[in-house]
């Protein structure tokens, strides 16, 4: 599945129309230079040949001319001879026809000499001779004529005398000599001209051969170079075709939509994927039709960016929605870069569009959840602010409580005591008991208030958790607990304890309460045994176990163990307000832990205190 045929044609046209011409020109230039040189040479040869030819013709003409002169000279010669013969014949026979013939020949001779004169007009020497000849001829002919005329009436002796005297003038000899001179000169000229003609012919031959040779040379060189060029062209074309085929394969194999445009942004070709996705034939897309596959909201911005890229030759990048063939718009990231053909200088733009729809949806979701998180955060902050405000109110409340409630209690107790002192002697047992009760009740109330205030304070206190080794705190708490009931026999079994992540103060409070309870509820025992060690715990937590051999408790009421002011023993059995374990639970919860208790009546109690493992590992 290659590029569509429409695209192939497009490609061919694209190549041929602009690229080929330009590239052919560029690559043939050296050849043309060579050919021009050879051509100049050839032209030179041809010009030389033409010149030589013309020279041959010129020499030929001159030779012909000379021959013509000779012929005329011959004609003259024979005319003279005939004229003389006819004259002699006439003189002998006195036949009028001979006289006429002689006259005719004389005319011919004269005409010939005139002709000669004309013909030798270009040759000064020859012309002079010919003129002399003509003059002589005229003279001779005149004299001949006069002899002939005289001969009519004269006798033989006179004629003989005339002839003798004519002969004594030696005109014919002179004439002959002159004619010979002319003829000789002309022959000599003929020789020379023949020679020159031969020379000219020789040169012409050379020129023709030379022209032919250079012609063939030019043709040969041209043929060879053309062949070489065509071979290279062929190779280049093959290589091009191969790389184009490779490009097409790659382009079609990619999941992206690939497109190629010219420098005006007009789509030249696309890969198969583009066609598949948009359902549009790239050949159908004209510049300005981008709206057929770009989302209308993205169109203006996209065209703007695209045009800017085209004009500045900078790479183009844009996120936009592309219309799928089913009409849905899908977000794509379109990127294109210019490629300049080094041969043709033409710039094409190669681009790709990658589906980023999923990513954008994810981004949208992320933004949404971020917004929600921010919202949550904001409401959390509000709550925190509310809480802080509430805490402050509670602080103020307990502050006034600690002042306002305690003072009257102190006064009740105080003055009841003073009253007792005052009336000590006068009071009976009942009255004393009443006073005592008043005082005890006051103290109870005071303790309750103190416990409640402590409980409240421990809940509000700021938490400072860190890695704590409980051992020391346990020992301290044990000491305090033991001091509260002096004279007791208590055996402490303190095992190794794991480090925990806790607030030291709160942990101490919890331990105080647990150990204090252990000491309190083992009071009936001769020897109290209290064990504090480590117990098993789940991942991420550590458990401290506090167990005693005291009176224990009924597991049926275990759920009430940690209730505020809840007790599982009466005030008569064991004193207490019932806030101790509630306090333990409160502080433990604040530290992110748990507490639970196990026990059986008369068989002691065990409390499991679970806290988070330290956050940082040692080392």
């Amino acid at each position, binding site marked *: 599945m290659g590029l569509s045929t429409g695209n192939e044609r497009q490609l061919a046209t694209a190549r041929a129309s602009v690229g080929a011409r330009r590239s052919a020109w560029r690559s043939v230039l050296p050849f043309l230079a060579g050919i021009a040189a050879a051509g100049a040479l050839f032209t030179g040869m041809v010009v030389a040949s033409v010149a030589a030819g013309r020279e041959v013709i010129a020499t030929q003409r001159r030779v012909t001319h000379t021959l013509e002169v000779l012929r005329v000279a011959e004609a003259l010669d024979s005319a003279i001879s005939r004229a003389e013969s006819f004259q002699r014949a006439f003189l002998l026979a006195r036949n009028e026809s001979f006289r006429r013939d002689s006259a005719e020949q004389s005319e011919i001779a004269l005409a010939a000499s005139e002709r000669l004169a004309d013909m030798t007009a270009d040759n000064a020497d020859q012309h002079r001779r010919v003129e002399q000849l003509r003059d002589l001829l005229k003279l001779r002919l005149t004299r001949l004529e006069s002899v002939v005329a005289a001969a009519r009436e004269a006798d033989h002796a006179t004629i003989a005398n005339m002839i003798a005297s004519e002969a004594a003038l030696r005109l014919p000899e002179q004439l002959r000599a002159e004619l010979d001179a002319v003829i000789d000169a002309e022959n000599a000229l003929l020789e020379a001209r023949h020679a020159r003609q031969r020379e000219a012919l020789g040169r012409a031959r050379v020129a023709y051969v030379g022209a032919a040779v250079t012609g063939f040379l030019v043709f040969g060189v041209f043929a060879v170079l053309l062949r070489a060029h065509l071979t290279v062209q062929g190779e280049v074309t093959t290589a091009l075709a191969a790389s184009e085929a490779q490009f097409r394969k790659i382009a079609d194999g990619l999941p992206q939509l690939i497109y190629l445009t010219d420098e005006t942004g007009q789509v030249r070709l696309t890969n198969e994927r583009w066609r598949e996705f948009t359902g549009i034939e790239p050949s159908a897309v004209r510049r300005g039709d981008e709206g057929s596959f770009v989302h209308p909201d993205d169109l203006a911005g996209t065209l703007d960016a695209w045009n800017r890229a085209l004009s500045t030759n900078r790479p183009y990048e844009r996120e936009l929605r592309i219309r799928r063939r089913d009409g849905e718009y899908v977000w794509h990231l379109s990127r294109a870069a210019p490629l300049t053909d080094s041969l043709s200088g033409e710039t094409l733009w190669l681009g790709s569009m990658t589906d980023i729809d999923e990513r954008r949806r994810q981004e949208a979701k992320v933004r949404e959840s971020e917004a929600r998180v921010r919202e949550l955060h904001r409401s959390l902050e509000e709550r925190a602010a509310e809480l802080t405000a509430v805490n402050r109110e509670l*602080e103020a409340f307990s*502050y006034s409580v600690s002042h306002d409630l*305690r*003072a009257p209690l*102190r006064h009740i107790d*105080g003055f009841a*005591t003073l009253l007792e002192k005052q009336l000590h002697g006068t009071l009976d047992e009942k009255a004393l008991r009443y006073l005592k009760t008043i*005082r005890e009740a006051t103290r109870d109330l*005071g303790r309750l208030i103190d416990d409640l205030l402590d409980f409240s304070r421990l809940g509000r206190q700021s938490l400072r958790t860190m890695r704590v080794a409980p051992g020391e705190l346990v020992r301290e708490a044990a000491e305090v607990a033991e001091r509260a009931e002096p004279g007791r026999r208590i055996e402490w079994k303190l095992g190794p304890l794991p480090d925990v992540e806790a607030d030291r103060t709160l942990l101490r409070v919890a331990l105080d309460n647990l150990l204090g309870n252990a000491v309190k509820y083992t009071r009936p025992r001769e020897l109290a045994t209290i064990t504090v060690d480590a117990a098993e715990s789940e991942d991420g937590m550590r458990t401290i176990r506090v167990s005693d051999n005291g009176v224990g408790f009924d597991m049926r009421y275990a759920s009430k163990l940690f209730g505020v002011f809840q007790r599982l023993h009466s005030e008569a059995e064991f004193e207490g307000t019932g806030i101790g374990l509630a306090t333990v639970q409160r502080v433990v919860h604040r530290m992110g832990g748990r507490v639970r208790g196990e026990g059986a009546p008369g068989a002691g109690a065990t409390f499991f205190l679970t806290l988070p493992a330290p956050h940082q590992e040692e080392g």
Partner: protein
Amino acid sequence: MTRQMRRILIVDDSPRDTELTLEALGTENLANDVVTLRDGAEALDYLYQRGDWEDREPGLPAVVLLDIKMPRVDGLEVLRTVRADPAFDRLPIVLVTSSREEPDLEEAYRLGTNAYLVKPVEVDKFIRAISTLGVFWAVLNELPPGTPEGAS
């Protein structure tokens, strides 16, 4: 044996507490030279010898038992004022108050109290605490130099 008895100042808005305090001091025979004041303003008047106390005997008390919550001028305000004054910065002051609130403790020590006592509800303990205080400050403690002795 002779004991130096020196003046004790009680500054408390509650007459009942004041009475209890006097009773407590009485158990150690320390109630003879006691001045009771109702609030911080009176305390300052006394200390600075002005107002109603213009004509009092000069001299610093051995100790001031100062309550916190009082009308007009409270205990911490007195403490602040007094400690800022070089004349009184060595005057022994014990805050005796119902409050065990940390902010008050913090503020009191920051301002320079010598001691802080939370009034116990049980009067026996209260009496014991006050009398101990009284004995300590009014009898045992060596006063800073320059403090005049009280009447013997």
